[in-house]
């Protein structure tokens, strides 16, 4: 209900205004049903996460209670501190952060340069390269897992962070989003800078890139979300414990049942929270980025 309702329209008198958008609407049974469905769905969406966070404060004894208790007896952080000290948890966390940040920076750098060439230059093979880039959106990593692994193995990048960072950095979707955005930058601007004697790379870094901030933000956020949660590729490349990322460590420890469950829960919360916080801050960019491109 907008502000205008409060300031302009008098209290409801008759049903005549019921269908207009500015009038005070009667609460019908359809409205009530809608709210009930929405609230139920919202609970279904959130309960697993709430349950996880609550569980992260429970002691092993509490976790094995029958029936399970809803709220923890105390809100102590012992699961978190224990996970931090008893396992190589800080190392998995660091690996995840390094891989996510380095991969995102690399993606931004190489995608934006490629997008600029495809948007603002005419050269032989331009359309062919652009189509090739688009076509590979159809080829997910799952399908080329083994041949990519062979390349990475022959370069000696198995069990290195580089092996996690580099292979998927040249995202076709990033090139696509940035190219579309750069098409809207007027050519005259670039021409004027050329006339003033600015070099091609200087124009790119000083004029084009700063103008692309909104598109760069979308690509960066999507890249961070994807890299942080990525699992199959790290599972394949990070075979030794020293290069585990958080999801790989969690999956391996859960499967092997070597780590107490209360610590697994604490690690899970640490894995989940950064992305949710990022989303709360950059909601608008994420929502418009996905709505416009259909890409996650």
């Amino acid at each position, binding site marked *: 209900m907008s502000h205008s309702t409060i300031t302009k329209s008098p209290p409801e008198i008759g049903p005549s205004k019921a269908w207009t958008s500015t009038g005070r609407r009667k609460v019908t049974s359809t409205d009530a049903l809608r709210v009930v469905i929405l609230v139920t*769905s919202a609970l279904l969406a959130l309960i697993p996460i709430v349950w996880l966070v609550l569980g992260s404060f429970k002691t092993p004894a509490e976790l*094995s209670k029958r029936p399970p208790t809803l709220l923890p007896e105390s809100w102590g952080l012992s699961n978190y501190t224990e996970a931090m000290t008893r396992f190589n948890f800080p190392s998995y966390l660091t690996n995840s952060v390094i891989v996510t940040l380095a991969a995102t920076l690399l993606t931004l750098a190489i995608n934006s340069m490629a997008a600029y060439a495809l948007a603002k230059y005419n050269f032989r093979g331009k359309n062919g390269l652009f189509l090739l880039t688009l076509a590979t959106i159809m080829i997910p990593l799952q399908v*080329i897992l083994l*041949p990519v692994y*062979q390349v990475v193995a022959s370069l000696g990048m198995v069990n290195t962070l580089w092996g996690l960072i580099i*292979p998927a950095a040249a995202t076709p979707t990033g090139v696509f989003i940035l190219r579309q955005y750069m098409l809207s930058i007027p050519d005259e601007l670039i021409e004027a800078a050329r006339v003033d004697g600015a070099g091609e790379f200087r124009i790119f870094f000083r004029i084009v890139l700063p103008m692309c901030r909104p598109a760069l933000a979308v690509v960066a956020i999507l890249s961070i979300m994807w890299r942080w949660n990525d699992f199959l590729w790290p599972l394949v490349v990070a075979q030794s414990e020293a290069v585990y990322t958080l*999801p790989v460590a*969690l999956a391996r420890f859960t499967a092997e049942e070597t780590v107490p469950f209360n610590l697994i829960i604490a690690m899970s919360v640490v*894995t989940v929270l950064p992305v949710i916080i990022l989303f709360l801050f950059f909601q608008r960019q994420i929502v418009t980025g996905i709505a416009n491109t259909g890409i996650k």
Partner: protein
Amino acid sequence: MAAVQAASRLRQPKAPLKMRLVPYLFLLPNMAIFGLFTVWPAINGFNISMYSSSNGRTFRWEGAGNYQRILTDEDFWGIVRNTVVYALSFVLLSVVLGVMLAVLVDQQRRGRTFFRSVFFVPVLISPVVAGLVWNWMLERQNGLINTFLGSFGIPEVPWLVDNALAMVVVIGVGTWMQVGFYMLILLAGLQSIDPSVYEAAKIDGASRWRQFISLTFPLLQPSILVVVVLATIHGFQAFDFIYTLTGGGPVGATTLIVQYIYENGFVSPIRYGVASAGSVLLFCAIFALTIVNWMIGRKREAA
């Protein structure tokens, strides 16, 4: 003399060599990584599916042998069946629930952004954690869900123990994780519909259900098509949350094609040839289905 003139005439309109190189220099880093880690492997994938290996280092030529082996393997057909059951149910559920949620959120005035964000939260969560939490909540003896159902007198449900129920759970959790993403695409589609098309229907006294069937649904079709295409691709790729939810069990009842490829390729006993033949078949399936989806979509638009 004439040749020199012709040559200089040809060269004249072109920019200096240095300028002509610039776009290629901009493209170089991206295309080098892209070529080495995407394009080349995509081509090489067909090649290595003709070889077999049990260690990933020494290879033996097999020709079509891997395909012969995989197509006559009963396990493989079980996995194909699981994957098809999962993907079909996932696409159907995602579209139906996605449209439903999008329409409800769109009509909701108070708290629209709130609901939109809440439905998106599961999309953000690490799939590994999602599988782990649901596994925990669905525990047979002391899980949250069975405890809740038990308070209504419902006996313990063997969610992750029964083959068919485990598949239902995997489909449900897969949809739970993704539906908020599809809802967002559909919501953008709904909001691009011109509100004036509803005015006439309202004046004619058309019911909300009638408006949905004859106005909203047809106008939303382009967005629905996008969701169907994406959900099909996602459905055939499902792996990460299943790894921690059921691990593919009980006895392979929820093992899908990507897990089959991963296990044959990287978990001993390694059957490299079978894994790469499976990858090629998965690629063909995704490719064919995407084309079919687009063709159906275009036919509908034309009609």
